[in-house]
């Protein structure tokens, strides 16, 4: 008993288990860690509490996002081996400990403890939690991997929509001044997220290795050129051109989206000076809704039209939309909101479709670990996107420009960034045969439940 309850073999579901009982476990984890996108709610109270400027407080979020990328990249193989339940428990412990340690830092007025808590420890929880349900969902839904991962990753977008009003409420309930309510708010959120994530951990199940959805059989020859029946390990995956092409695709898509997301509130007020601060906050919320919806809708659509065509839409139509925002964005608020809303839905869709794209290219044996390594593109884009938009806006301002003109150049640059991603997606090709594992054409796990490598059982199929 004891910790063995968390082992992968203890989570193997009975053959007749209803697979629709798995997504809420993934959603529970992603809705909790999605709080990270709402961390800006704490910014002003933290600035007042520590009597400092925005930049030192902004570092908390930056550390968390960097740790997300690093822990997903380096912890991916462990997550595959340990199984989703153990990974989710570790994520719950790290994420909630991040709040507890952060609360200690706030209570003692030691900002470095907040960096260590929310940033480092919480950031590890973000990375492990983000990738923990991905390969499990792909194995439960081999017929609809885009829909399944879209459903989970939608939670990461939706988490901020819950956390933002909830945090505001907590800050107003616990004290007269928000800066005096940070400690109890951190403790409340830490405890709440721990409980919900643990519920997810004890709900998640993995399918038996040879389990198939009723009435579904893997196609003998995949209809699409990029969909393989072979398996590639994480170590080999990063040696292949398709991995790096997809890295560029994700980097470009995220860079473009995050540039708007990070600057949304001041941007709409610069485009339309009549927009109030409260209305701008509503616009940011609307973008979060588009971001969340796009994760499920577009990722599900990719199951029908294919992954590469879907990314052509994200990058190609996305570039056209950026061009329209730059050239006609000031025409009306409704047009501006509609265009940027669709752009943000593509941003979310790009995140949610990528695990299924990886599954198509590399198979399922270490798709979680490969996904973790690909998420370094997110960390890089998190630096590049805001740098382009903020840097160019500052430069334009010093050149005497104002309003929408502050952003015109950076919007056109984003058109170029998306065009680069579009070309990388066009160049995508099947993984060369030499990177395929010996002979494992289906969902056979690389690690058997006892931790030993699974033995090859079937003949290799060449890439289509």
């Amino acid at each position: 008993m004891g910790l063995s309850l968390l082992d992968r073999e203890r989570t193997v579901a009975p053959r007749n288990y209803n697979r629709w009982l798995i997504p809420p476990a993934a959603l529970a984890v992603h809705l909790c860690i999605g709080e990270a996108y709402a961390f800006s709610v704490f910014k002003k109270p933290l600035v007042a509490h520590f009597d400092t400027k925005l930049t030192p407080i902004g570092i908390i979020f930056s550390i968390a996002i960097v740790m997300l990328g690093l822990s997903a990249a380096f912890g991916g193989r462990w997550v595959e081996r340990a199984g989703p339940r153990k990974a989710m428990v570790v994520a719950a412990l790290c994420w909630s400990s991040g709040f507890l340690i952060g609360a200690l830092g706030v209570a003692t007025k030691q900002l470095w403890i907040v960096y260590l808590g929310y940033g480092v420890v919480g950031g590890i929880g973000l990375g492990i939690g983000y990738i923990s349900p991905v390969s499990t969902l792909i194995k439960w839904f081999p017929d609809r991997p885009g829909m399944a991962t879209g459903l989970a990753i939608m939670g990461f977008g939706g988490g901020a929509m819950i956390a933002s009003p909830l945090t505001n409420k907590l800050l107003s309930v616990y004290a007269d001044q928000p800066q005096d309510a940070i400690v109890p708010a951190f403790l409340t959120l830490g405890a709440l997220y721990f409980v919900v994530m643990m519920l997810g951990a004890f709900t998640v199940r993995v399918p038996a290795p040879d389990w198939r959805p009723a009435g579904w059989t893997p196609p003998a020859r995949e209809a699409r050129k990029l969909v393989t029946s072979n398996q590639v390990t994480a170590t080999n995956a990063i040696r292949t051109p398709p991995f790096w092409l997809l890295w560029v695709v994700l980097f470009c898509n995220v860079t473009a989206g995050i540039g708007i997301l990070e600057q949304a509130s001041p941007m709409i007020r610069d485009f339309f000076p009549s927009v109030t601060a409260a209305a701008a906050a509503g616009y940011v919320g609307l973008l979060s809704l588009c971001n969340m919806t796009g994760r499920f809708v577009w990722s599900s659509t990719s199951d029908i039209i294919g992954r590469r065509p879907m990314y052509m839409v994200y990058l190609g139509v996305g570039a056209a939309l950026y061009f329209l925002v730059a050239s006609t964005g000031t025409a009306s608020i409704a047009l501006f909101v509609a265009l940027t809303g669709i752009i943000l839905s593509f941003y979310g869709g790009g995140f949610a479709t990528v695990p299924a794209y990886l599954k198509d290219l590399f198979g399922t044996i270490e798709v979680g670990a490969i996904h973790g390594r690909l998420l370094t593109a997110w960390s890089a884009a998190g630096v590049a996107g805001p740098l382009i938009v903020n840097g160019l806006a500052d430069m334009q301002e010093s050149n005497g420009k104002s309003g929408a003109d502050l952003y015109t150049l950076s919007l056109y640059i984003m058109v170029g960034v998306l065009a680069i991603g579009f070309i990388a997606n066009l160049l995508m090709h099947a993984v060369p045969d030499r990177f395929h594992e010996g002979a494992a054409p289906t969902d056979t796990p690389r690690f058997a439940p006892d931790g030993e490598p699974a033995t090859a059982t079937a003949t290799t199929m060449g890439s289509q």
Partner: protein
Amino acid sequence: MHDAATEGHGQIEDGAAPPLALFLWALVVGGLGYGVVMTIKSAVQLFTG
């Protein structure tokens, strides 16, 4: 390798998961619903001033 775990029999608490999973479905749908309603309420100000 034909043990109970790989066959998917026996080593899990059959019957324990579904009520928890159903509760979790209700929890996440309720949470998302709360988030969507609060977001739309806030976004309405964008067009009503």
